Structure formats: C-alpha cells, structure tokens
C-alpha cells in the first residue's frame, strides 16, 4: 500500500473515531495534569477537540512527510495558538509538547483495534502516526522558543536604554558602545560607570563608540571630554570611535579640542589600535 | 592638636552668615591651622554621608570645602566655617559658610576665573570650587573680610 493510501486510510480512521480518540486523549491528559480547576479542564477539552477536527484533513492532503506545507497551515496555526494560550497560563514547553505526544497512545489504541487483521499496515500506520506527532510536538516547542526570544529581545532593548553596557573586548581593553540620544544625566551615569569598570577590570584602554548616537550637544561633549581626562588621570587611555559627519561638525562648532584624543571611524579600527597599544596583534592562520 | 576648641568670633558681618529658615542644625569650626583643614574635611565627609550623597558628590563637596578652608587660612589670616544642615521641605542639603576678617578680595571676577595656572601659581581656585557645588555665593569687602557660602543638595 502506498503512503498516500495509508494517509487516506488513517485520515478516515481518525475522522470516524474522532469522539472515542478524543475522549481517550482527554482522559489521559487529565490524569497526567496537575491543573485541576474546571476552567483549565474546559480549555483542555476545547484544545483537544479543535486539534482533532483539523488533523484528518491535513493528514489526507498533506501526508506524513512534512508539516511545513500548505496542507498543514491550519494545524500549525492551531498549535501556535494553543501553545500561546498555555504559555500564558504558565505551561512549560514540555507540557505543551506532551499535550501533542500523548495523542499517540489514543491513536495507537484506535489503530490497533481497526487494523487488527492487517499487521503490516498496522506497523506502518503506527510508525507514520508516531513520526507525525513527533514533528507536531517539536513544533510547539519551537513556537514557544520563538516567542520567548521575542520577549528577551524586547527586554534587552529596554535594558540597553537604561543600563550602561561596558564590554570587555580583550585583556586590558574595554568598549563602551553608546546607543540612543544621550542626555546630561544619563551621560554622567554612564561615564562614571565606565571609570568604575576601568578600575574593576584593570583596563588600560577604553573605546567609547558613538556610532549609535544621533546627536551630541555641548553638555554631552563636555562630559565626554571630562571622562577622557579623568580616565587619563587614573592611568587609562580612551579612544573615540564611530564619529559620524554630523557629530564631527558639532564637535568642531562647539570648539571641543580633540587634539590629544585618538579618534577612529569604526569600533574595529579602534580595537586594532588598542591591541597594538597593549602589545597584541591578531593574525590569521595561514 | 593645638588651638582653641571654640571658634574665634569673626567680626566680618556678612549677610551670608545670617540665619535662614532653611537651617535645621548648625555647627561652627575654627580655621587657623593645617590640622583644622583636616578636621573640616572629616566633618564635611560625615555630613555628606549622612545626606547619603553619592561617592562622586561627596568627594566634590569635601574637596570644595578643603579648598575654601585653605583659602580662609592662607589669604584670610584664619577664621571659621559654619556647617548648616538645610531642608526646604522636599530635599536635604548642606551649607558651608567660610568667613574671615582678612584683607578681602579686590577683584572677585578675577578670582572666579580659574586660578590654577600650570606654572604652579597660587590662584584662589574659586572658579574650580564653584563647579563642584550646587550653589555658590561670595561676599567680600576690601579691608573688611570675606565670606564664601556653598550649598550641596541631595537630589
């Protein structure tokens, strides 16, 4: 029997015995579940029903090979929604994946009953269903991961706005990539933090990168100069990188003297200069 | 430690020394010797800590106090400093008034321009001290005396 026939057969089977399979599945889940309030039970039943409704058509049209195709779109969407709802209520990704995997048992029972007389077909059917549900279960984990990543990225953005990201690039070399508009108060905090980090790490050079700073006003420029002077008094040198044309103009207009400050176009260039100063070089393996 | 334990009264009657409704507590310290300068630094540091100023703000305040205390001794012939704890209902602060009966500063504007020359000249450095604090007031009259008041608020 071809896989297509197989798919057709299983699809029909699921459709036919939907109620029983569903009941069995729900019973299994409820026995495993820690959540026992009626609201979550009702939601669980709903999820199971919705999934089982979509499964036969998708199996029929899309087959078992891949769940990426158009035929499986609806099922994937459904799973994404289920996954999202469960995550909101505190389900772990494993719990949501188990939601899918536990359908195996119910489907196997049903398959064994209806295909009792056809062992080879039964074996193939069991295998197909197993791998299909594996893929669907793993899919829910990926979905969970992606939404978590999005949250993390957003939180990182927020943190960047607030915190002072001083990075240790190398032994003795620190980098302070400034991002966003700087106001006087924030600049002061950031600069003080840089000086503290210099002491903490014993860095000899600090690269202040202002690629991500759209404008610089008098106060900020002054703070910058004062920080460089303070770092020098402490025994560390600063390099400014990422000065864009507009900022260069502002600095000149303000009459800020950058004569004894090394400036480089990019952080990378500054890094190379810093490396040379601390006595290291990067070489490519032949 | 030599010198009187109570401050010699300074005759220079500056309005800067008048009582203000913002003052909660007041302390007067003598300024005649090197050791007095060290004592003032210590006491101002204590006040700064009480005010919960950040380390940088503390350092700026104590340094300003040290500069002005030295000026009082070197150029004013000695005098006193009054340390006042301030509160305006919303924030707390510290006010220091350095007073002496010395010759006075002839050209205040000049004194406020930076007095630290690289040649090691002995400028008054008032401009520098001014940058370290939130409020700065100076009252000086030739032949009568000088009073300098500085305030640092806890923001």
């Amino acid at each position, binding site marked *: 029997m071809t896989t297509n026939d197989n798919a057709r057969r299983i699809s029909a089977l699921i459709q036919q015995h939907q109620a029983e399979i569903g009941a069995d599945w729900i019973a299994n889940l409820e026995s495993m579940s820690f959540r026992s309030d009626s609201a979550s039970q009702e939601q669980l039943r709903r999820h199971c029903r919705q999934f089982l409704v979509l499964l036969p058509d998708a199996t029929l049209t899309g087959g078992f090979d891949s769940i990426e195709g158009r035929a499986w779109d609806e099922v994937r969407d459904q799973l994404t929604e289920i996954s999202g709802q469960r995550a909101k209520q505190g389900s772990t990704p494993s719990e949501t994946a188990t939601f899918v995997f536990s359908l195996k048992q119910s489907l196997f029972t049903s398959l064994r009953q209806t295909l009792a007389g056809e062992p080879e077909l039964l074996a193939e059917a069991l295998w197909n269903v197993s791998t299909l549900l594996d893929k669907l279960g793993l899919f829910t984990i990926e979905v969970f991961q992606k939404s978590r990543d999005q949250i993390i990225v957003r939180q990182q953005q927020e943190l960047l706005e607030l915190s002072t990201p001083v990075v240790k690039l190398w032994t003795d070399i620190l980098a302070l990539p400034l991002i966003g508009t700087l106001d006087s108060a924030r600049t002061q905090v950031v600069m*003080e933090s840089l*000086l*503290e980090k*210099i*002491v903490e790490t*014993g*860095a*000899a050079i600090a690269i202040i990168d202002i690629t991500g700073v759209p404008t610089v006003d008098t106060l900020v420029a002054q703070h910058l100069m*004062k920080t460089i*002077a*303070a*770092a*020098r*008094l*402490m*025994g*560390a040198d600063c390099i400014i990188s990422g000065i864009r044309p507009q900022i260069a103009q502002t600095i000149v207009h303000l009459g800020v003297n950058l004569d004894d400050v090394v400036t480089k176009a990019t952080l990378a260039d500054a890094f190379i200069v810093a490396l040379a100063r601390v006595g290291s070089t990067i070489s490519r393996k032949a | 430690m030599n010198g009187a334990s109570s401050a010699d009264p300074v005759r220079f009657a500056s309005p800067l020394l008048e009582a203000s409704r913002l003052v909660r507590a007041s302390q007067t310290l003598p300024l005649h010797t*090197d*050791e007095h*300068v*060290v004592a003032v*630094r*210590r006491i101002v540091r204590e006040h700064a800590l009480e005010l919960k100023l950040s*380390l*940088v703000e*503390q*350092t*700026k305040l*104590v*340094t300003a106090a*040290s*500069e002005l205390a*030295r000026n009082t001794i070197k150029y004013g012939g000695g005098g006193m400093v009054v340390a006042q704890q301030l509160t305006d209902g919303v924030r707390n602060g510290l006010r220091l008034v350095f007073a002496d009966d010395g010759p006075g500063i002839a050209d205040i504007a000049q004194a406020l321009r*930076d007095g*630290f020359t*690289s040649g*090691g000249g002995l400028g008054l*450095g008032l*401009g*520098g*001290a001014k*940058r*370290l604090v939130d409020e700065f007031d100076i009252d000086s009259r030739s032949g009568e005396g000088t009073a300098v008041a500085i305030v640092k608020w806890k923001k």
Partner: protein
Amino acid sequence: MDRIPILRIGDLLLVTIQVDMHDRLAMTLQDDLTERIVKDQAKGVLIDISALDLVDSFIGRMISNTAAMARVLDAQTVLVGMQPAVAITLVELGLTLPGVKTALNVEKGMLLLGKSYQ
C-alpha cells in the same frame, strides 16, 4: 613630626600615601622625595594614591612639583591608583597634572617606568 615613609626598590622609590595629609605633611613629603632621589640615585618614583579618597589642589600641585623636580634630577614619576571619584573631581577643578604619568596600579606603574628608562 610624622613623615610618610618612602620605600626603595632597586633604583625606584615607592611612596604609598594612606593618610589624609595636611599641607605641612605634604610639603615634607615633597622635600623628602627630592632628597631621596638624589641620595639613592633613583631613576623612578612611584606615588601610590589608591588609598586616598581626596586629592585637592594643594596635593595635586605637590605631585606636579615633585614630578617636575624629579625630571630635573633625571628621574621619572608615575602616579598610580587614582580613584574614579577623585579623578572626576580633579578634572572638574581644572587640575590636569601635566607632566605626570599615570597608571592604574603599582604593577602597571612599574612596567611603565621600566619602559621609559630603557
């Protein structure tokens, strides 16, 4: 009168300032250092101020002067361990200590001195 001890390490002089110095003590230190540079034929002077939470214009000038005199006597001076709050305050005061080399700590200071008189 108390004095600040000066340690000799080879042809190097090390001074660790740990007390809140009054002006007279600072002047005495400056004199002592100058004397010792000649007496010990020192090539380098390391001034460690990592324990100081305050450096005002007087101490600042003392350090500048010491460095200047040392140079005349053919010795290099390195100032090490300035705390961030002190550095920020000195910059605000307008004191830049020209002619004084700086390093983060004694170890780096010695490396710096080693390089300069080779």
